[in-house]
């Protein structure tokens, strides 16, 4: 009773099965995800702008207000991560929470919280940058390359 499927060559079995999986697997709700990413990401930016305006009102110059605003957002993201709220928001917001500076803060606080049990040095210290590390590496390398290109092709 072993049917034709089992006697097909492996590559064809894999391909046919892959198609079966595609049929059964639920597609990601792209429109819903995009909508909420836009709304949540936009809200984060609006909140940032609000803080920026507030700091300017308090007499800070443009650059200082910008720095203060970034620090505040990072602080809030870290706080939300610490109390377990950030991942609830990210579940809905998706890319809207990951992309801004808030996502970066969350990606550092999350492993820091998690690896307490492995100690301060090899646990928290080493793991702080597990997710943020690549961001730094590739960001800095890209900046360096662009700088080089700018220098030669200015």
């Amino acid at each position, binding site marked *: *009773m*072993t*049917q*034709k*499927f*089992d006697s097909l060559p492996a590559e064809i*079995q*894999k*391909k046919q*099965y*892959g198609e*079966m*999986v595609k049929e*059964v*697997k*639920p597609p*990601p*709700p792209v429109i819903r*995800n995009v909508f909420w990413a836009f709304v949540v990401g936009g809200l984060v930016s609006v909140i940032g702008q609000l803080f920026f305006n507030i700091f300017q009102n308090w007499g800070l110059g443009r650059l200082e207000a910008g720095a203060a605003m970034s620090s505040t957002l990072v602080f809030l993201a870290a706080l939300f*991560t*610490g109390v*377990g709220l*950030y*991942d609830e*928001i*990210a*579940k809905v*917001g*998706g890319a809207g*929470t*990951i992309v801004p500076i808030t*996502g970066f803060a*969350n*990606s550092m*606080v*999350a*492993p820091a*919280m*998690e*690896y307490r*049990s492995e100690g301060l040095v090899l646990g928290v210290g080493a793991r702080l940058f*597990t*997710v943020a590390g690549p961001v730094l590496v590739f960001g800095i390398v890209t900046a360096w390359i662009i700088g080089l290109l700018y220098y030669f092709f200015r």
Partner: protein
Amino acid sequence: MAAPKKNGQQTVWFQNQPVILATATIVGPKEGQGPLAQTFDKVAGDNYYGEQTWEKAERRMLMEVMQTAVQRAGLTPQSFDCMLAGDLLNQIISANFVARDLGIPFLGLYGACSTMYESMAVGAMLIDGGFADYVLVGSSSHYATAERQYRYPTEQGTQRPLHNTWTVTGAAAMVLARQGQGPRITHATIGKVLDLGQGDPMDMPSAMAPAAADTIARHLLDTSRNPDYYDLFVTGDLGVYGRELAIKLLKQKGYDIAGRYIDCGAIIYSPEQDTHAGGSGCACVAVVTCGHLLQEMKAGRLKRFFGVATGALLSPTTTQQGETIPAIAHGVVIEA
């Protein structure tokens, strides 16, 4: 000449059918809010279960179910000839450390989420082969320990895909004996590792469904039985979508089990709990088998079932290196 207790290619039958004397289960709060809440012996208040780390919590859960099952069988740890256990953590530390504290001769096993049934199969062989009077079998898993090992830190803001399954927090243990009253293990089918090219670590059911279908089909062939011989077919953690895949694959092989088939991962959580595709982890099939299924058997609503636990045999390293996910499924027949 074939080995005397072998049926076909991958199935063995037991002459002196091992008896399931007692079981014990414990789950985390999420599972304790699910549809099977009443079937678990104990529900932990939170995922730390009074311990400093999640790993310690998982160990404590496994230890407690082992001790409870031993007590319920009217035995002590010294009565046991062998302990078979495993879990998802690197080097199966949950099982190792519990074995240390119980002091029973120990064979650690790893079959990912199929470990419980792998342990039952081997335990049954030890008893039927005359190598043991009493065997203690168990497995555990924990949402947080699995996430931090296989995926992301738990507070990381990630969006889980709809086909993702949720690792069950919990543990279960079972006492197998050469003599006594209780449901019996009559056959075991040892699975082969299958890989049909699925490589998404967030979608293990797609990788495991072919192994489940293969073991079920192989078992029916080996024993020359039709699907209607069994009241129920059970898979461990294929989840909602993996279950559909298994049904389709078995149809291709000429078997229709749709009307008598449940998946533990698909029934352990309710849709309102929003786990997406259902439950996974070693504990998933373990707590449902030792709890709900054996309770149904005791109540007379289930006479014989073929349970198949599925395991995805990947590691974080193989995924990063671009490998696909090989999977295995082990099956055991339990009759009232």
